[in-house]
């Protein structure tokens, strides 16, 4: 028996096995998951069973939100003052009053640092935990989770509200999220692409269509079992039917089924309503939800944009999310990770009056909460002007590794890409133990 490892550990033989499954290699692993709903590949002792990842594309200012420097000179400090939170010693921006009352539930990570100051590169880095590389496309957190976490039979594993910057990368479309394309509006019915019966088709009509299809779809019966493609198509057809006709899936997206009191924990704005939806989805059994809340690229008029628009939404949404998860008893089992792709320049620019801030990857903040994370603490520290980490600082990879760890996913685990190259989930990260309970 030949045993030597090839392109980084994979034997040529393993490669051929993948090859023999043909183009449906990835797919079949997906099918296995469908067949047995408990085929997840995670540590059973993990605190988090599901997760919510919140992308803040554009790059939110750290020095105006969770890393204020009230003693710095005026051209750095900015217009906002710190306020006390419900945790002694932790102060955040005055325009985040609701979050200040929930500070015991989340951890603030300060002085995270990297070097990629362009939006697409920064996002690729932070939202996948891997520095971009032209020959590999790394999967986003949700896609890895969709591959590793156990799936439910009649529910999507991974939902993006309304969409996400990070795709399934080399894992392939099988692990792409269900994209809602829209966010719920308070008191209005919420239609989700693919899940809500569309085009006025009624449930009984849908059943009758499927019956007609089943009767007609037997052209390839003689070769079906020899073709991964054909048998795969058949099994997905059944699963899709199950999801579309599932009452549970439909109701998971219907935020109006929550009590009025619960809905009132959240604001009426789009981001808050997305947070409400995320809470409900996790409660229903969806394993991973990604929320996207953009607009943080405040080169001009940084302070008015933050104060009037961005911070009130972030405040209402996140405060609702933490309170809602806690009320449902889901906070301990749901990991939450909130981040943009970089921070913003500590020195205020003069592109507008009263000024803005530009891209700044050298120093940024991130938030984590829930499953396995110790809330009510600040980890890391930036220097006097929030211009860089005061001590060693954290790499984005470290936070990513920690996020995976809370879900019981070993970030060093390797996948073989379609060309047989082994790629670890996070190439270069160390778990930040201080963040964990």
């Amino acid at each position, binding site marked *: 028996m030949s045993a030597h*490892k090839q392109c980084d550990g994979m034997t*040529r033989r393993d490669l051929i096995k993948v090859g023999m499954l043909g183009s449906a290699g990835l*797919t079949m692993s997906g099918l296995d998951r469908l067949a047995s709903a408990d085929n997840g590949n995670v540590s059973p002792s993990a605190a988090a069973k599901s997760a919510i990842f919140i992308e803040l594309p554009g790059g939110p200012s750290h020095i105006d939100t969770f890393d204020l420097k009230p003693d710095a000179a005026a051209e750095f400090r900015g217009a906002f003052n710190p306020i006390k939170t419900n945790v002694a010693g932790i102060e955040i921006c005055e325009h985040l009053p609701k979050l200040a009352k929930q500070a015991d539930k989340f951890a603030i990570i300060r002085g995270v640092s990297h070097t990629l100051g362009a939006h697409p590169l920064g996002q690729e880095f932070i939202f996948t935990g891997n520095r971009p590389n032209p020959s590999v496309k790394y999967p986003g957190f949700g896609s890895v989770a969709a591959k590793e976490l156990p799936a439910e039979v009649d529910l999507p594993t991974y939902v993006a509200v309304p969409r996400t910057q990070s795709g399934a990368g080399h894992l392939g479309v099988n692990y792409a999220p269900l994209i809602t394309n829209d966010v719920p509006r308070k008191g209005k019915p919420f239609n989700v692409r693919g899940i809500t019966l*569309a085009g006025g088709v009624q449930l009984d009509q849908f059943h009758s269509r499927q019956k007609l299809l089943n009767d007609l779809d037997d052209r*390839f019966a003689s070769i079906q079992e020899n073709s991964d*493609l054909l048998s795969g198509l058949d099994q997905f057809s059944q699963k899709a039917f199950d999801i579309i006709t599932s009452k549970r899936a439909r109701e998971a997206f219907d935020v109006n089924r929550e009590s009025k009191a619960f809905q009132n924990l959240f604001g009426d704005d789009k981001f808050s309503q997305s947070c409400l939806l995320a809470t409900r989805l996790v409660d229903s059994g969806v394993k991973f939800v990604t929320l996207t809340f953009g607009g943080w690229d405040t080169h001009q008029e940084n302070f008015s944009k933050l104060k009037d628009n961005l911070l009130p939404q972030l405040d209402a949404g996140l405060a609702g999310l933490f309170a809602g998860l806690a009320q449902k008893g889901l906070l301990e089992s749901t990991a939450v990770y909130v981040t943009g792709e970089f921070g913003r320049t500590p020195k205020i620019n003069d592109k507008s009056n009263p000024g803005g801030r530009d891209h700044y990857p050298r120093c940024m903040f991130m938030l984590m909460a829930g499953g396995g994370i110790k809330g009510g603490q600040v980890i890391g520290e930036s220097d006097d002007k929030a211009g860089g980490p005061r001590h060693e600082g954290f790499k984005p990879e470290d936070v990513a590794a920690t996020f995976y760890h809370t879900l019981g996913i070993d970030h060093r685990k390797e996948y073989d890409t379609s060309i047989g190259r082994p790629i670890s989930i996070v190439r270069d990260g160390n778990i930040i133990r201080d963040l964990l309970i």
Partner: protein
Amino acid sequence: MIIQMRNSRVAPCLFVIATVAVVSVLAMKAIGNKTIQPEYRSDLQSATVRYSKDTDEVPDFQRHVAPLLGRLGCNARACHGSFQGQGGFQLSLFGYDFDHDYASLLEDATGRIDVESPDDSLIIAKPTDADMHEGGLRYELGSWEHRLLKRWIESGANPNGEQKLERLELIPDSLELTSPDTPVQLQAIAHWSDGTAEDVTPLTRFESNNPQIADVTETGVITTNNTPGDTHVVAYYDSAVEPVPVLHPYNPATSVARSKAPAPTEIDKLVVAKLDRLNIRQSELSDDATFLRRVTLDITGTLPSPKAVKEFLSDESNDKRARKIDELLDTPAYAAWWTTFFCDLTGNNETQLKNAGYGPAKLSQQWYDWIYERVENNTPYDELAAGIILGRSREEGESYVEFCNRMKDSYHNDAAFGADDSMPYYWMRREFQDVDARTISFAHAFMGIRIQCAQCHKHPFDQWTQNDFQEFSRFFSGVSITRARNVAREDRMQLMKIMKDLGIQKDTPNGQLIRELTKHLKNDKTVPFPELKTHPPKPLKKQGEKLSRKDRKKTFTQGTLLGDETVDISEYADARQPVMDWLRSPENPYFAKALVNRVWAKYFGVGIVEPADDLNQANPPSNAPLLDHLTQSFIESGYDFKQLHREIVNSRTYQLSWETNDSNIADARNFSHALPRRLPAEVIYDAIAQSASNDTDNDAFLTSINGRAIAIPGTESRRRGKQARNAKNGKKQDPTFALSVFGKSERKTSCDCERSSDPTLIQTVYLKNDRDMHQVLRRKDGWIADVNNSYSDAPLNPQQKKRLIAAERRLAKLQKNKRQFTRNGDEDGVNRTTRGINTLKQRIEPFQARKNAPRKPNRKSPLSAEEIVSQAYIRTLSRYPDESELERCVEHLESGDDQFELTGDLLWALVNTKEFIVNH
């Protein structure tokens, strides 16, 4: 025999030695029942034999020590081949960096090598002691491996000699097994540059490409089990990678009259020759309907229209297939679909074009149109490739202002850009700031090889080393983008004049500047354009890094063509020129072959080399004579792209049925039958729209590509302007979602696998229940609406009802106006309104009759239920229904009285069949 733990995560370096068999090379008997005795070199003794006793031979580092460490697994990734090393000791991954590995072994004060006391050297002490070595026991004291290493150390642990490996010979060099029980020993002979030969069998690594068919032991003994088929066993020694084909025929009893297998074309002869050796019979020829659907989808990315199906099926001439092929190759849809193919290869992606001009969408469209024009005119492939490979912005002798003027003109006139024989955007992609990305992309796109492995370590399946990669990349470091603001010194005066004429302030911030310039450009003013400039090749800055002062002054004067000669680049004005010349030389092993193999893979779902973009020595073609023939004939035709299609598609092999026989059911790589393939993303999207369209629109799909998904130039699929107005799926639809669901290439990394044809759950959910699907299937001007309207007494559907009510209101208003005009004696007004009233009445009369029609129509339509079912089948599956299908569908159509919905159910069910979504 060495058994390695598979699960490297659990036990990264746990190896167990069971036994180390010293195999006598001559233990071989007959090979199968052919009783051919391999002619082994019995005059050479292998290292196993030479070092099984004390010897005076002095081992050489490159010949013996390094390969032995490789074969023992020391330089594996989980062990010392890891980039971090293991226990402070690091070897080059997969070996071959002899200088590095030698230095690493001899590193001061590590004790790895102790010439004074060889057995205390760590490379002996540790791997022979399982307790001391995390990697476990690798070999035993007293073994030949031990003696060899010890001899090398005690004789001074010297570095390499001067020899170079000329070739690695394998005996036997191919194997055909008719009785699978007899194991066969391989003998590996290294031929060195000084003319000497050595048996290096025990220092060679052996791998099987498919152990199900033929497995190979550590020591090079090939064994087979009962799975017939063919594969390769690959030997690795030094930089050599040598495959040995092994063929294990299917049951001879199933083979009937092989020589009678029809083989009308050269392709068929070569395919059947291989199949004969495997005892496989090809399937029957496909029927006409299957052929027509397959060939139309493959050549043009389009379904055959109902009219085309009917005409083809009723045509009784003998040459109708060949004529159909020629006809399809002349359609705009052919040009569009194969332009998409080249856009995938070259990475036409808007997000990569942000710095290349004004409006990435415009540039991406120009890129697409430039290729389209050449595919349509059947420009020879080498010319098309040269236009991209040697792409430049300025024409010879053109001044900067003249260049900007020309770019302005082509901005407003698409044809002007296509007329230029050069297309610079490939090199202006943003990721190409990094010269390594250029090399990786180039090798993938134009040579079909995956060189990226060699960016960081020796390629595991090919001869390429990091040095080869670096040397090859020199040719690509002689072009850079010059940003509009930052032109070369000699052009600065011209730039300043342009800016002054436009009245642009010097300190305008970048974003605002681009906006202003775009506005001026739209007003047909000359604005500065970024350009691709050639310069002497030099080290280039990488993302997030700075060039050292030393590098800034450096230029490269030499580069080495992959696997070929070193070239003096300084002789060329454009460093890419020697690469283009090399690709065009008829002996080039990659350029024509890579394209031919890719095109073949599109038609068969599997390449002759598979994966199609992975030409490497360890991955030989399944049928080398076939690939050679196609390549040769393509080159001899003058790189005639259409002729390549014609030759492939006219073969009987392409036209075989998907229905298998008892001999070929398990074959998936020798082209013995057609393999069902999922339709590509753009083709699915268009096919759904086409199935749902009315007969007139349906017929135009081949000829009018406006608004089709195969005409989307880049990766940004949302259509604007003209494209959106002509969108075949309805004006409001955005195909972005559907195309990504079905795996359109994102054109981000260099891999053909970026275009996915895997089935997924989300695809099925889309087909069954996406709002876009519902909208397309019941479009107002589509087939279902036509069918429904053909019933003179059909009840109105809700949309028609709404329109009727609106029209009746309009009518009432006109009548009121007419009364008014009559009262006022306004004759003109009366005439005008009367005309209006009459037209409107005529239009709505048939609808009014149906307003109160019974829910169950009386079938006064010219269309019977049977006819509706036939139409539905032809427009989706391109064939007539059989009797049981007809019966089932008619039953459904008659199961209720809402014809609109019931016909909709039928169309829905048919586009949801596997038969629809695969090409077969």
